[in-house]
């Protein structure tokens, strides 16, 4: 499996292929291309596990995360992005953002 998560988070494995994405532009595009039903399915499954996931990743030094932990952290980043649509706007796109775009061109890794 390419996007394996730590065994402690096997319950989130069904979402890893879709949401364990390396960069914000990929995560943003995925959010915009998703229905609210899809976003809610991910959010409802993953949000209760968020704090445990952060604590799990936090056991490892930031610059040497094992691959499965990196996958989990990317899932956390996607959950953060999806939470904006679910908790704040009730739709995939920010309300009143019209045709505006803002491309993230640099971000720290991981």
């Amino acid at each position: 499996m390419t996007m394996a998560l730590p065994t402690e988070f096997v319950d989130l494995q069904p979402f890893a292929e879709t949401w364990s994405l390396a960069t914000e532009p990929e995560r943003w595009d995925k959010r915009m291309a998703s229905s609210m039903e899809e976003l809610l399915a991910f959010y409802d499954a993953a949000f209760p596990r968020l704090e445990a996931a952060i604590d799990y990743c936090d056991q490892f030094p930031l610059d040497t995360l094992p691959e499965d932990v990196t996958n989990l952290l990317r899932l956390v980043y996607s959950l953060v992005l999806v939470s904006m649509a679910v908790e704040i706007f009730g739709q995939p796109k920010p309300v009143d953002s019209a045709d505006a775009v803002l491309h993230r061109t640099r971000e720290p890794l991981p």
Partner: protein
Amino acid sequence: MWPKPIEGSWTEHYPELGTGPISFEDSVSSEFYDLEGEAIFKRAWLNVGRIEDLPRNGSYFTKEIDIAKASVLVVRGLDEQIRAFHNVCRHRGNKLVWNDYPREEVNGVCRQFTCKYHGWRYNLEGDLTFVQQEGEFFDLDKDTSGLASVHCDVWNGFIFINLNAQPRQTLREFLGPMITALDDYPFGRITERYDFVGDNNSNWKLFADAFQEYYHVPSLHPQQVPSAVRDPKAGFVCAHFQCEGPHRVVSTAGSRRWTQPRESMYPIEIATRSGLVGPWQSPDLGELPGGLNPGGVEPWGISNFQIFPNIEILIYGGWYLLYRYWPTSPSSHRFEASLAFQPATSVRERVEHEVATVVFKEFALQDAGMLGGTQAALETGAVKEFPLSDQEILVRHFHKVVGDWVADHRRATMEVVS
């Protein structure tokens, strides 16, 4: 409630600003746009980057400044000195440094610059070092055929250029006491960067206007407060405004985020201890310069410095935001934004930075989406004058300074003609 100056308002504290309605003709007129290029962007010091953008000797980036019809190459030489040049080959005028498309900005590391057209080469200090078939040329003096230099100076890690052949002020004189009071602010320790760029269909000043007042926040961004505790009549009052020369600052008060009732925050904020105003807690930066909070606001929240003409630095507790507005036409500009944090030392800190960065984009897109509407409506010309409140004093100051620089330039040009 925050006390206003003795004159009764922030605006009247600066009598040259007046209190009458203002025109936004300066944001729709093509003629005015052309004048801004000459009067402002070819004369003011312009911030084009940070020293962290040039980490090594040989690091370079290019900057397209459409309104001034300039392409500038900024490079760190082998002597570590940062220099700026017009990005133009001295042979046939080709754009010297570009990758896939000539109009796209690029960055990288190199040992020399080679023109794609005929292979002329320049070293990192801008000297012409190689001419193909040099013997075929007539009276070519390589020693005086280096890249045309652009004035370049660095303040507290911010790289500024000036396109004027003879800048009227040094960078420090231009920045003045209110900005140089941040000399000792440790920007150099806040280097974990998230950068954004977006082309926006509004005049550069209209976009800047939206970030130099908070009067619009409850109306345009109601979602910044969860609906359960949202007050439809809520307003916003800033604690301190200050104008000095062409520059401005506004400070707001801040409350400790984690002391607020849980229902005033979204679940993602509580889970990650980060959100709208950034990480709830950032590592202590030690003693900070008094210039960070010139109004002595307590409890202090944010200071938002607008350095003329086109940048804004919003300093939060332990991190900052930087905006730049690059005009591309009377009705469009390129918006650049950076969020800068102290480098994360753990996954949890990195997640805090990601959350703050994600929230920033959501609400910046609301500003960006709406301002296309402002531009289009102003272009109808149906309304000529617009009232500004005391909370919008910095909008008033900004448009006045822009007008003053243009008028000053017009006068100077007319004197030369007559």
